[in-house]
């Protein structure tokens, strides 16, 4: 168990850059998630840490040791693959014992540690089964035990939950997190699922097209996204283009003024107001003069939550809240009706507008 440092890590292929430059220090026992859409370079980064891909530039340090040139089998990382990659011709116990055999751990010791690892993932009763006789969730846990039993310096997880159904996913997510914290494992997890990243990780690295967009804790990323991409990828977000009319007031492209007290980034031409839908409070009725009014265009009932699609003189916004109770007048709001909106002016963030062209590589 050690720290993991990625130092200016870069991977270029013939024409494309898969990973532009990743700088990251994961502390001992920290769980860092690489989050991004497919093709953003997160898996390439993980595979460079494991040693399956040689970086074009930069270094990978595990502990204080530079492992950039060290072959896969000597890196002592424990990896869990997306499709589990269990050895189909070996029993569960043999699968888990494999890494210990490679490390020439004596038989008695090996059997003890295999049993321990299987107990840890609550599979000790299935030690003699073949992988194909297990359910997806059980196979996943075998893969976890197999990677953990060798006491890896760094624990690597490549989309470990994407092959599980939704209910199981939440369960295994908790289990992985609990294991990781109990064993104090420095962990790197790759995921495209923002909910998974937010709930599991100590810190997140949001990537897009080979670049790191932002690194931070779940809270930092959600409350203070660095740019429009992060704001839209992590959670839901209203993104409204416009300019700062004067401090505290944002003018949308359709001319509506919205309250906003957060600081504007350097370039004032072309701003985007980022406002989380759940920060928008909706009240039925026209309200007082000077209030922000909107017309409801659609109401989406999501069970626990209800989402309101709103039109403010040509500017569209979404507001969401816990579904109102039966006797609440909001419960009967229908498209076409008017609502009054309000939000804490500090929770609306100003971000620089995205320029789609600036991608020189």
């Amino acid at each position, binding site marked *: 168990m050690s720290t993991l440092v990625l130092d200016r890590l870069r991977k270029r292929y013939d024409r494309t850059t898969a990973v532009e430059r990743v700088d990251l220090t994961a502390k001992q026992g920290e769980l860092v998630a690489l989050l991004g859409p497919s093709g953003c370079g997160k898996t390439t980064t993980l595979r460079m840490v*494991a040693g*399956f891909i040689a970086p074009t530039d930069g270094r990978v340090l595990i502990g204080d040791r530079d492992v950039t040139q060290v072959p*896969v*089998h*000597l*890196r*002592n*990382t*424990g*990896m869990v*693959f*997306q*499709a589990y*990659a*269990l*050895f*189909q*011709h070996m029993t569960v116990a043999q699968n888990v014992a*494999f*890494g210990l055999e*490679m*490390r020439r751990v004596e038989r008695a010791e090996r059997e003890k540690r295999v049993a321990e690892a299987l107990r840890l993932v609550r599979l000790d009763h299935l030690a003699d089964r073949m992988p194909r006789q297990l359910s997806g969730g059980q196979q996943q846990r075998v*893969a976890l035990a*197999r*990677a953990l039993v*060798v006491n890896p310096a760094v624990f690597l997880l490549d989309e470990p939950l994407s092959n599980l159904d939704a209910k199981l996913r939440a369960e295994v997510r908790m289990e992985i997190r609990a294991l990781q914290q109990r064993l104090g494992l420095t962990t790197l997890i790759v995921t495209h699922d923002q909910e998974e990243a937010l709930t599991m990780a100590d810190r997140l690295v949001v990537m897009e097209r080979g670049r790191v967009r932002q690194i931070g804790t779940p809270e930092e990323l959600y409350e203070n996204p660095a740019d429009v991409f992060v704001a839209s990828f992590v959670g839901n977000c209203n993104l409204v283009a416009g300019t700062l009319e004067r401090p505290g007031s944002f003018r949308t492209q359709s001319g509506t003024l919205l309250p906003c007290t957060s600081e504007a980034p350097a370039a004032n031409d072309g701003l985007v107001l980022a406002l989380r839908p759940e920060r928008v409070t909706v009240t039925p009725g026209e309200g007082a003069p000077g209030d922000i009014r909107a017309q409801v265009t659609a109401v989406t009932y999501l069970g626990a939550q209800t989402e309101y699609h709103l039109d403010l003189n040509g500017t569209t916004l979404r507001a969401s809240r816990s579904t109102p109770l039966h006797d609440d007048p909001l419960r009967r709001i229908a498209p076409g009706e008017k609502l009054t909106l309000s939000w804490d002016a500090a929770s609306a963030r100003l971000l620089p507008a995205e320029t789609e062209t600036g991608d020189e590589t």
Partner: protein
Amino acid sequence: MAALVLPAALLVFTLLVAPMALLARISLNHYSPTELMVEAFTAENYIRAVADPYYQQVLATTLGVAFLCTVLTVLLGFPAAYWLARMESNRKSIATILTLLPLLVGNVVRSAGWMALLGNEGGINAALRALHLTSGPLQLLYTPGAVIVGITAVVLPYMVLTLAAVIESIPRQAEEAAANLGATASTVFRRVVLPLSLPGVAAGSVLVFILCMNAYATPLLLGGPQFKMMAPAVYDQFVRGNNWPFGAALAFILLVATLVLTVIGSMALSRRYRG
């Protein structure tokens, strides 16, 4: 749905089962040099085939050649199959066609080419003489070696394609997982790739072994008159000797030997796979 099998089943029945049944009956008949085949119910043809040292030798040669060729094809075919299976998909189809290409050349045509290459006045001997490496011609043609090399070349594509299909089904991530757990490349092969490929080795070996046991043109053309394998021997009895009962008995011995060894071999391999 079962009706869909009918046309194929009918074809197999009329062209395989029925003639084999006839052949089985013929193998029990008596042969007389004057009357040729005489209706009878005797085991004398089988007894003669099994007891005659000459035919014992022919069967032993056939088994030896088939066994050697099968082992050779596994050894030569595995690396090629692995390479093919792990190739990127757009180049894989081209490589697959290239693997199949040798099958476009018929056995007789190919063997004739080998004769031109291996003969006393052939390409290899001419080259060796030109380089002053040999004084007299090297006997290459009409040797067991020529037959083994020739048959191996013919059956190799079957092995490569069968193996490649199985290796392709082994996830690359399983190899990566083994490496990640500390296995060197050779250990990954020995502990993961090879055991998971055994069903392919079994299937390919069965296919190749059957083809080798029944090889006809290659042993005939490359082995010369002294070298006898079972299939040409069967042909000799039917066509040259006009001894249908004895030929039929030889054919059945070949069939049963092939069948028994195939079953034993694949059972041994599949037990190994499970264990």
